[in-house]
């Protein structure tokens, strides 16, 4: 911009060089390497062997993979509607005039700043069937609580519940940002036309909030495909493999079973999945919002 010739290139190298080298070494390099690895068999003890598409063929009839994919989709199917609903409700409630609004916003956001490991541990203890608070409170209202993380049918739901608790605040702030952008006049005008709160939500808030909703939804979607920390700490994929998810399987294949090539292949399938869903999503967004 300012200088000419060699000096200019030197300046550019100074500004962009460090970032470029790091990105090449720690991001682009590994991405390319991982793609190559996906076509090899490598146990770390002997050099990698080229096996062509065999890893992908094997994936296609690996029941573990399909189970993990199914569990990931189950997580997604439970988590997304719940977290979007709670996030939207809290955002709308905390957008209006309400006593202690700033305080409540901070409270709902607290779980977002805590680490996943901490949250997972606290909930693991809260959901303890015999000594935890949740089942104790349920018993007070006459409900015999389930065994939560110790029961294959309840384990995934427990993980979903914990995730919704942690991420409601995140969806809330994204939607609050969107709500703040809706001009007040729209509400005043619709009130003059006789619209009640329900109609206002339906005809003013939701349509104008679409971009924020789409943003929150697509981020949540991408993140839930990569669900890992909470599963690792709360269940380790158990009980009886009831909560194995894709990233957990990838980490396990690579770092417990030393099957680097297979893990890489699986991670590329995950990438393609996320990619396709994201593209489909932004298409939908263009149509609806």
């Amino acid at each position, binding site marked *: 911009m300012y200088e000419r010739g060699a000096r200019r290139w030197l300046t550019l190298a100074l500004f962009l060089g460090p970032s470029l080298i790091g990105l090449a070494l720690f991001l682009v390099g590994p991405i390319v390497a991982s793609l190559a690895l996906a076509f090899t068999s490598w146990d770390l003890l002997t050099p990698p062997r080229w096996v062509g598409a065999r890893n992908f063929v094997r994936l296609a009839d690996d029941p573990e993979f399909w189970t993990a994919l199914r569990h990931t989709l189950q997580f997604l199917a439970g988590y997304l509607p719940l977290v979007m609903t709670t996030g939207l409700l809290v955002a709308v409630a905390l957008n209006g005039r309400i006593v202690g609004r700033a305080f409540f916003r901070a409270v709902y956001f607290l779980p977002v700043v805590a*680490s996943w490991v901490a949250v997972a541990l606290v909930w693991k203890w809260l959901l303890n069937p015999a000594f935890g608070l949740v089942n104790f409170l349920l018993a007070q209202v006459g409900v015999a609580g389930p065994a939560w993380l110790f029961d294959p049918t309840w384990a995934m739901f427990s993980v979903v519940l914990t995730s919704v608790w942690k991420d409601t605040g995140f969806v809330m702030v994204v939607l609050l940002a969107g709500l703040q952008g809706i001009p007040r006049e729209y509400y005043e005008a619709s009130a003059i036309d006789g619209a009640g709160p329900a109609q206002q939500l339906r005809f003013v808030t939701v349509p104008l909030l679409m971009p924020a909703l789409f943003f929150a939804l697509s981020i949540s979607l991408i993140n839930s495909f990569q669900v890992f920390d909470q599963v690792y700490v709360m269940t380790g994929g158990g009980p009886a493999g009831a909560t194995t998810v894709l990233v957990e399987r990838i980490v396990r294949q690579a770092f417990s079973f030393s099957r680097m090539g297979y893990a890489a292949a699986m991670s590329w399938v995950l990438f393609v999945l996320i990619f396709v869903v994201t593209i489909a999503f932004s298409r939908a967004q263009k149509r609806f919002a």
Partner: protein
Amino acid sequence: MVRVRRFARGASGRSGPRWVSGLALVGVVLGALVMLVPFAWMLATSLKPGQALLALPPQLIPQEPTLEPYRRVVSAFPMVRVFGNSLLVAVATTAGQLVLASMSGYAFARFRFPGRDVLFAVYLATLMVPFAVTITPLFIIVRQLDWIDSYWGLVVPPMFSAFGTFLMRQFFQSVPRELEEAATLDGASALGTFVRVILPISGPAFATLGVFAFMASWNAFLWPLLVVRDRDFMTLPLALATLQGLYPGQTEWNLVMAGTVISVVPMIVVFLFAQRWVIEGVTTSGLKG
């Protein structure tokens, strides 16, 4: 591109009938309880002596509060060192990200050079790739560099995030060029202009990126899990996960919760002081750890 609007400014609220806001307040208070009780349970458990853990009914307020769990967790585990590690790693990662992202972001915003747009597209593309894809080769690269069990391994790879470059570029593009042109006329170099003119007005962007980077690093789990085996280099989330299995055959939830309190409280303090930046950082990035 996502536009983020400040929240907590200006009430755009609409008020419906009184019963609606009454109902909303009840809902908000109940929800806030659900958000706060797990933290209370964590704190209460961390203050209980071992025998009170399995007491029925569970004590939400410990009957005989004690600091013994904290004392034990600090003596059993180099907790002070671990805390220092987390702080050091988070500060170093954040500082590195700020320097790298602002310089590369500035280059993309202001320099004209062949291949710039292609290069920037590559930066953006890396944002779409899930961490699971790069993790295996990245681990092997870090292993080759002999960075396992070192601060280098914990700090350097996460410093290179295309997200930061992207964010800073957007910010610099919104800065009027006239500011720099005046400096250039005075004969300042690009670097001089950057340091003396641009950086002083970049506070808000730095705060947003900085807070996000700090949180992501403080809460990171999967990467430290892979690159650290020596307790002396453990960060808090890793230490927490390890605490769970520290005493084989014993279940010491009070120690685990004491460790959790130690890890969560600093983040809450940071959040309370820097609420606005935290929320903006998280909203913009949409990424969690």
